């Protein structure tokens, strides 16, 4: 009962109307922060993309040289020169190839490739956000 009376008592308090432009200011602030964050991501991932692109050829060369040294490239060439034998003994072929693959160098090359592709994807996504789109506006 007392609770109900108190509720009624406070129900007379009006809501205070915010200034007319406040909603727009909030959305503009969010938009600025969104673009700023996109530009930071753009700068960071552009740097990653450039460095990984620059590292791609040396890491590929390193992985290929190591594969030649270990014999893995000869096994790989069998895929094209004698594919029927490879298909016949595919289990043995995979095991031999796995043993001879330069895992360390191959991982470095694949990691570099992954970094390049991922950073390119992030850059493409953030170019639009940072410079072209405006999402938070009053309509």
């Amino acid at each position, binding site marked *: 009962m*007392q609770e109900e*009376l*108190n*509720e*009624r*008592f*406070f*129900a*007379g*308090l*009006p*809501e*205070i*109307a*915010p*200034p007319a432009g*406040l*909603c727009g*200011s*909030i*959305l503009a*602030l*969010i938009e600025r*922060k969104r673009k700023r964050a996109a530009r930071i991501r753009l700068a960071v991932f552009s740097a990653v993309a450039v460095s990984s692109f620059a590292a791609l050829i040396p890491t590929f060369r390193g992985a290929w040289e190591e594969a030649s040294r270990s014999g893995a490239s000869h096994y790989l060439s069998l895929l094209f020169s004698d594919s029927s034998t490879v298909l016949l003994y595919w289990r043995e072929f995979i095991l031999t190839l796995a043993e001879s693959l330069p895992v360390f160098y191959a991982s470095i090359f694949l990691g570099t490739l992954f970094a390049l592709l991922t950073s390119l994807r992030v850059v493409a996504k953030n170019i639009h956000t940072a410079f072209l789109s405006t*999402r*938070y*506006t*009053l*309509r």
Partner: protein
Amino acid sequence: MEKSHDNDDQLIAEYLAGDEDAFTALVKNHLTPVYSFVYRLVGDARNTEDITQETFLKAWKHIRRFRPGSNFKTWLFTIAHRTAVDFLRKKKDLVFSDFENDKGENALLATTADSGPLPDEKSMDAFDAAKLEEALVQLPPLYREVLLLHYHNHLTFDAVAGIVGKPLNTVKSQHRRALLALRGLLNHMNF
């Protein structure tokens, strides 16, 4: 018009699925209650605007942390409360609350509050919102906040406790003392 709890959940789901307009709708729906709450807490328009902006910016930044199914209004008011408290702390405006002990009892208030009743149903006919505003302004921010959240924003004591970050019993105790203090102030104003 304020959207329902379900509608908020729907808008949040749409926003997280990539519809940015859904967040704009959330801002529009909750702007007035948040602004009113903050204004009554800090007392001036300029700072209220800053705190309200900051509140919605924080909500936008952290919306992925919002747990689906919980009350968005409570979550948003929690952010508004913390932002306003940070501001008041910087202004050192919480001096009155320093008299409070861990149980939410205020020694200073206990000696000054009048224990008369709140205006009864009859006197509410002549209710003057301006008088209530005037009395609320004189209450310590913590007491004012509990009363506004519970009676004006229709939040449960559980939700209020979550917002102000205090145990339920402390909030109930603060609520009782806030009512006593308000009665005292209104009687003093011959209301």
